[in-house]
């Protein structure tokens, strides 16, 4: 069996910051920051192989065992409910899942609420929990324009600073859940590479507290 620990990192700034923690935790792979177009990087000495994946795909790589561990946002874990271990809250990439609406929006409960979102399950679960009947419009990006064009009444999306919302005359009317990056592990890999994975968890949780 492949003894290298396969790590799926989310492409982008979060992934780069997460890699730095892995590096200080004793799993360096310097070639990864050289800015090439390669997607897979190995350091046999440290026993680790990193690869860049689309952030929303990290959980799939881990669930299916192509990666032993990975870093994924809580939003992705809530939306896809992958069957994985969630070992650590990395306290990075913090933001929140929220409902946003045009300024002065008032919900009229006589009508079905139209909700545009990338996160259909999170939106459905949230509105089911408060007993509001909704119509979900699944979009893949530029969610903010949906209420402006009359496609939806509100949106459910990730809010980091709120700048995009403000520039499009939207405001947060409800926070659904706080989001941050999590260290996840494949359930089978955890059994067979337990020592390596636990070392990473220990080092990373130490780093997080600093």
């Amino acid at each position, binding site marked *: 069996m492949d003894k290298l620990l396969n790590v799926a990192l989310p492409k982008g700034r979060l992934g780069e910051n997460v890699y730095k923690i892995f590096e200080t935790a004793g799993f360096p792979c310097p070639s990864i920051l050289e800015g090439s177009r390669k997607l897979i990087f190995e350091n046999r000495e440290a026993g680790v192989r990193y690869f860049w994946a689309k952030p929303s795909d990290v959980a799939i790589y881990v*669930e299916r*065992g192509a990666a032993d561990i990975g870093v994924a946002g809580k939003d992705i874990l809530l939306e896809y409910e992958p069957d994985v*271990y969630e*070992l650590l809250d990395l306290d990075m990439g913090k933001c929140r899942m929220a409902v946003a609406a045009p300024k002065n929006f008032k919900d009229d409960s006589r009508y079905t609420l139209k909700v545009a979102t990338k996160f259909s399950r999170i939106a459905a679960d949230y509105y089911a929990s408060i007993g509001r009947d909704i119509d979900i419009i699944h979009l893949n990006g530029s969610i903010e324009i949906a209420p402006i064009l009359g496609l939806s009444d509100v949106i459910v999306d990730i809010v980091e600073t709120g700048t995009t919302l403000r520039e499009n005359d939207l405001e947060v009317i409800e926070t659904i859940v706080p989001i941050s990056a999590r260290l996840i592990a494949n*359930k*089978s890999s955890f*059994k067979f590479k337990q020592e390596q994975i636990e070392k990473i968890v220990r080092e990373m949780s130490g780093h997080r507290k600093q």
Partner: protein
Amino acid sequence: MKFNLDVLDESEKIMFALRTLYSSKGYERYRMSKFEEYDLYSRNKDFLVSDSVITFTDMNGRLMALKPDVTLSLIKNNKDHPESLKKLYYNENVYRVAKGSNSFREIMQAGLECFGSVDSDCISEVLMLAVQSLETVSEEYILEISDLQILSALIEAVPAPAEVKQQLLKCFSEKNRHGIRQICSDNGICREYAERLQTLISLYGPPGKVLEKLTALCLEQGLEAEVKRLVDVIRVFRDTAYQDRIIIDFSAVSDMNYYNGIIFRGFIAGVPDSVLSGGQYDKLMQKLGRRSKAIGFAVYLDKLQGIKR
């Protein structure tokens, strides 16, 4: 009759090896040759791995199903005999939808069940057969064992509504320590409970490493009998070649409406999820009006594709 073993493919060889193993321990083969009414499965939907079932109408107008599961039918077709022990194994095709897919597949499944006076010797035997089934399949394997009595006693002790307990249970299946802390602080649950649950979730590993701390935790909670029972049933592995192959891990969680007591899951290196799963399901027996106790497991032969023995 002339017969050459070379004609068998890998999964057939595994299947025959498992049948040899089970029958050598006195398990009788059960053949499921007829169809059950859809109602049997729909009433116990949550017990099934996936809740989609292929149905058809029989000649007399009744709604029937292609089996998604063998256990329910085994219980239904065997008389209740709480005083004695009946040991059965099966090797059947079942029809299921895999997670994330939209189509049914025919899946080869093997497994065994014990009905009746299930005592700790019987549980030990089933655990041993589970480990030996894994050994049949791969060189690198692990059986993880959990005890729902201990887990549910600690969760039930938490002063919180049922849905919060459900969330805590989900955290257990994810080894999610920070989640437990968050849920407890969000719901104003005393830190003591959170810490106790976090201790239990952190207790995983070979019995030699875990049992001392687990016993201490259980004694403190008045779960003396429960922990003793767990120690008793896994004693069978002591000083055997299998003692490094089992781990205690409370992240193995099954539906508590059906399962109780010991539950377990088998993993082999290179397969991303469990290839074997089972446990005691006295509560399912009660739901079906049986007084017998029961324990059993299934091996998912479809997940073994491409594994080199």
